[in-house]
């Protein structure tokens, strides 16, 4: 399998606290990988290591087949990686439209990404694009950030907690944008702890627990993983002969399944 982004056996210590040890993560084209785990498990730290915001103590980061000994976000961005941090990405001094246009201009005209107008339409921002980000709600800002990603049309997207504090309608718009990017061939890694979006968006699941990671496979395979179900989901695992999970994207069905499990 070809990996767009690969974190292999990454370790990180903050003071006396070993946050990560031998943690690994992969992003593959046209797939959404959900890095799921409790708060403080090291999910965001992994993304920050991947983008060079902090340096790993051990292990390595590889992007598109090249080992990055000192990864830097601006260099990775030139190679078509886009990073949505858990905090605000947008500049508070420029309107959303201006930032979308800036993204488009920096890319040139042959980027293959959607236009600013199309991106705004797709995320329900048509009425909001002439506002400053400070005048938007958190959910609207998150959608605007995803609109930037749509315009950018990256080959790899790292999104840190894209569904946090979002209303269901905002979250559905974000999920739709992520699925759209995945269909365009983008390899996506998202972090979070919301089970609904795990079932609704993810193609593959990696569980971040106790400072390390465990690749669980597809969502259906994750749902049959007894330890993940017992320790994280708090539900009994599905048996092999039990009905599979709903197709990715059917979020309302996923809600019901989790509630009934």
């Amino acid at each position, binding site marked *: 399998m070809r990996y767009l982004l690969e974190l292999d056996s990454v370790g990180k210590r903050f003071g006396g606290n070993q946050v990560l040890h031998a943690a690994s993560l992969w992003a593959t084209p046209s797939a959404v990988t959900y890095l799921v785990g409790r708060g403080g498990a090291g999910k965001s730290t992994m993304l920050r290591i991947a983008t060079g915001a902090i340096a790993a103590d051990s292990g390595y980061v590889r992007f598109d087949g090249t080992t990055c000994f000192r990864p*830097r*976000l*601006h*260099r990775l*961005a*030139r*190679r*078509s990686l*886009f*990073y949505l*941090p858990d*905090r*605000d*990405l*947008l*500049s*508070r*001094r*420029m309107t959303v439209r201006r*930032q979308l246009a*800036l*993204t488009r*201009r*920096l*890319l*040139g005209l042959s*980027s*293959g990404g959607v236009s600013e107008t199309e991106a705004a339409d797709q995320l329900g921002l048509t009425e909001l694009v002439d506002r400053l980000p400070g005048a938007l709600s958190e959910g609207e800002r998150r959608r605007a950030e995803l609109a*930037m990603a749509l315009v*950018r*049309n990256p*080959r790899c997207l790292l999104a840190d907690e894209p569904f946090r504090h979002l209303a269901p309608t905002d979250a559905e718009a974000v999920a739709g944008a992520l699925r759209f990017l995945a269909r365009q061939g983008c390899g996506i890694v998202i972090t979070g702890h919301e089970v609904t979006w795990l079932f609704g968006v993810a193609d593959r699941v990696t569980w971040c627990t106790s400072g390390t990671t465990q690749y669980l496979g597809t969502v259906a395979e994750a749902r049959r993983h007894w330890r993940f179900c017992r320790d994280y989901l708090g539900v009994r695992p599905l048996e092999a002969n039990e009905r599979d999970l709903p197709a990715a994207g059917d979020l309302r069905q996923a809600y019901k399944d989790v509630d009934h499990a």
Partner: protein
Amino acid sequence: MKRIRFDSHLARILLRRGFLLWLGTRVILWLVSGGTFTPIVPLVQTSIILVAVVAALGWIDLRLSREHTLFENLGVSVTLAVALYLAPAAAAETLLLVAVR
């Protein structure tokens, strides 16, 4: 591979901010010194310190506004952004030094 090209529009934004920072720093210095620091008669040492201060303020501005992640996502390094912040200060201080001498 999709390449990001540097955009003159973004450069203008950062250069304008750098110019305003330099102007503000000079005015504040003049006010703080009670008018004894003459803004149009620079010294080499003062000019160097001023440019360094503008660079530091530019870096702080990028961090506080959290724009560094945005610019890096657009392929512009923090070093380059800070260089654009300090460019107007360096140019203006050089011009002042040349003009006075």
